[in-house]
């Protein structure tokens, strides 16, 4: 007699995850998820023990952003699950597909304030794309299967599955049949009407001064090649959002660089003077538009986005094309005409003006260590080929300005929520997803201290990362706002740090302090050569400022620029200028 098929809910969790292609999870155990942990040992699953559940969610997020696959985080009920909240919200705002599996108290105890009971589906309702409370063993597999589908389809996002302990423990003899997900109300991929495609094509072909706004949706959709084709054929210059960086190589001749609050002033000027904005998978964040009243006043706007809720949310558009970018461009490309547009490209070149001589990159260091120089050196020495995760603050903006990304999915950063503490755990996820790639963390001294406990995870897992702490002794970005808008009253922004290098060594990792420009190259070289993770503590200028900057709510063209007198310095720095080695339109 053959033995009947029989599984516990806990076993079904892992079998379903394996069926979804998951081999690694980031997690932390506890009472309500113990049955699942016990069953895990019998399956080919790599479990990475984090030091804080927030880390697990950022790791899953970093994994997902580096690979395009769904990352998975696991935690217990109550405090385990609530520790995930920041990471879930981070993934939500940046449309990152992750699945969080949490244990819940036994179903009979729900609603009784049982030990470690929290209404996790209630807590995460507004910060998940969708969530599930599973109380029966036979619902575990379908719920997880659906969760992966919802997380990765349409506009991606985080999905949480909360599974009661008794459902994990219960046996079932009903083998789950996981076919096509049937969600009658869920329409992940809309299709634009033919007439709208027609109007879009006409606007593009007619435009004299078009600009492509390249967003994160290009990477999510995998439409990099098509966007390039569009830009090249129609000779349309490209501006990128922070999260669109990498969608088009930095050294592409039509790529102008980043737009928005800390984008290049001449890129913003091009947007303001454009007669057509072609927004591709970007959502007109307020850091991108500045004042909405004065945003690109003479431009017709075409918006291609998979989420119709983004249309006319911030910026009124003339043509809205709902759908997967790649699918929409497949329809649009055949009707786009080749154009020259050298006049427009020429005037953009004119907008640059004295930008280059004002750029700190081209200024001498005068014996000081500037963050921009550090990041430039890391870029140069890694050949621009590393995956870089950044934290949030000034260093994040300098990274976006001075590390020139040529590859998709090579910059991983928290844009929408701006979550400090993101960089280090996100790098763990990225390294696990792409073990053969060089991974750099660029973090501030403030944000690094929020999740630096994950150094222990890195040590335990023997992961090779390179960590650059831009140590300016301040919560620099907030200090910068205080400098500009609060009369230099530095309330709560000076921050004391431990000896980061010694700290790293205490975890069995490498650590070095760098105080001058001359030391940068050697330290970066040694870090890369070391088989352990190495933490480099770059002690940079304390009161340095990210230029240029659009003050919140100001017109995009009204940027605060680096003060003129600094530009009087000798622009002939011994360093090669940033633009070296790329063929530029401007």
């Amino acid at each position, binding site marked *: 007699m053959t033995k009947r098929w029989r599984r516990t809910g806990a076993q079904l969790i892992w079998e379903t995850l394996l069926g979804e292609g998951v081999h690694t999870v980031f997690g932390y155990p506890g009472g309500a998820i113990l049955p699942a942990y016990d069953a895990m040992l019998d399956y080919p699953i790599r479990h990475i023990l984090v030091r804080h559940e927030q880390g697990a969610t950022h790791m899953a997020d970093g994994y997902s952003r580096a690979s395009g696959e769904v990352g998975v985080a696991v935690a217990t009920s109550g405090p385990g699950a609530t520790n995930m909240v920041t990471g879930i919200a981070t993934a939500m705002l940046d449309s990152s597909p992750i699945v969080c599996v949490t244990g819940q108290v036994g179903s009979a105890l729900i609603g009784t304030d049982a030990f470690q009971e929290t209404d996790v589906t209630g807590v995460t309702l507004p910060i998940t794309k969708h969530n599930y*409370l599973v109380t029966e063993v036979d619902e575990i597999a379908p719920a997880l299967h659906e969760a992966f589908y919802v997380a990765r389809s349409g506009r991606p996002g985080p999905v949480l599955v909360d599974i009661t302990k008794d459902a994990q423990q219960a046996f079932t003899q009903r083998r789950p049949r996981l076919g096509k997900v049937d969600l*009658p109300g869920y329409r992940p991929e809309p299709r634009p009407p033919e007439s709208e495609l027609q109007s879009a094509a006409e606007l593009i072909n007619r435009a004299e001064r078009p600009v492509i706004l390249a967003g994160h949706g290009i990477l999510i959709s995998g439409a990099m090649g098509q966007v390039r084709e569009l830009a090249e054929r129609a000779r349309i210059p490209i501006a990128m959002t922070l999260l669109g960086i990498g969608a088009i190589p930095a050294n592409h001749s039509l790529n102008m660089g980043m737009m928005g609050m800390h984008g290049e002033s001449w890129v913003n000027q091009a947007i303001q003077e454009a007669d057509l904005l072609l927004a591709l998978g970007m959502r007109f964040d307020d850091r991108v538009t500045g004042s909405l009243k004065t945003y690109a006043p003479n431009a017709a706007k075409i918006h291609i986005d998979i989420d119709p*809720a983004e249309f006319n949310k911030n910026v009124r558009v003339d043509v809205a094309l709902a759908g997967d970018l790649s699918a929409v461009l497949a329809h649009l490309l055949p009707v786009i005409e080749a154009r020259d547009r050298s006049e427009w490209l020429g005037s953009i070149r004119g907008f640059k003006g004295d930008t280059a001589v004002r750029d700190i990159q081209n200024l001498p260091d005068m014996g000081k260590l500037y963050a921009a120089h550090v990041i430039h050196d890391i870029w140069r020495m890694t050949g621009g080929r590393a995956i870089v995760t950044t934290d949030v603050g000034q260093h994040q903006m300098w990274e976006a300005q001075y590390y020139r990304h040529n590859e998709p999915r090579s910059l991983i950063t928290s844009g929408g929520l701006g979550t400090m503490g993101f960089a280090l755990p996100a790098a763990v996820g990225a390294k696990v997803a792409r073990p053969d790639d060089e991974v750099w963390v660029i973090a501030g001294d403030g944000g690094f201290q929020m999740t630096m406990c994950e150094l222990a995870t890195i040590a335990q897992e023997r992961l090779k990362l390179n960590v650059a702490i831009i140590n300016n002794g301040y919560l620099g970005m907030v200090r910068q706002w205080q400098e500009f808008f609060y009369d230099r009253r530095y309330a709560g922004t000076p921050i004391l740090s431990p000896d980061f290098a010694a700290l790293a060594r205490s975890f069995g990792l490498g650590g070095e302090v760098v105080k001058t420009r001359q030391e940068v190259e050697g330290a970066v070289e040694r870090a890369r050569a070391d088989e352990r993770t190495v933490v480099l503590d770059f002690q940079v200028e304390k009161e340095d400022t990210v230029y240029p900057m659009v003050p919140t709510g100001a017109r995009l063209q009204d940027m605060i620029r680096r003060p003129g007198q600094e530009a009087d310095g000798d622009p002939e720095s011994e360093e090669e200028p940033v633009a070296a080695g790329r063929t530029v339109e401007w």
Partner: protein
Amino acid sequence: MTPGPDGRIRPHIFVVWVEDLPGVLNRVTSLFRRRGFNIESLSVGPARAPGVSRMTIVVRTDATTARRMLVQLSRLVNVLRADDITNEPAIHHELAMFKIQATGEERTQVIQLAGATGARLVDIAPESVVLEATASPQKIDGLAEVLRPYGIVEQVRTGLVGMARGAASVMTDPDARKPPKRRRASSDESGGSHSV
């Protein structure tokens, strides 16, 4: 609410069909709260198709924001369909009950008033009567106005429900799909006849 570019603030009537699952009401109301809308009235009940609930939600807002709200509603995984029927030819009714403390002459007047306004007398006690009316919110407002001098001691109104006129209406229940069998969702396991 600040008014949007195109228009005045007025009541908008949304009809929303949702999967009848625990927690779905919470998802819908949470969306309204999150985006800063105050729900004026909300009613829920079973739709024609099994496993489907139908909500009528009234929100005071302008046309732009109403459109945005509709798209947001449609994004919810458990929402089958959402329509703004404010400008559709439709019957908008609500049910109201009023308890009036009245004896003697006043009592006779109240009962006569009921007859004249189409309200029904549903309870007579020694000291009070209960009137019930089904009508448009404006008519109900009017009825409350004429009853007020007699002393309303208790009132209940269901909030509006709507249905389009005619056969081929935009509001035909979505029922071509098979009813959802799944019974999991989040948070509020409310009791009652249906599980939304």
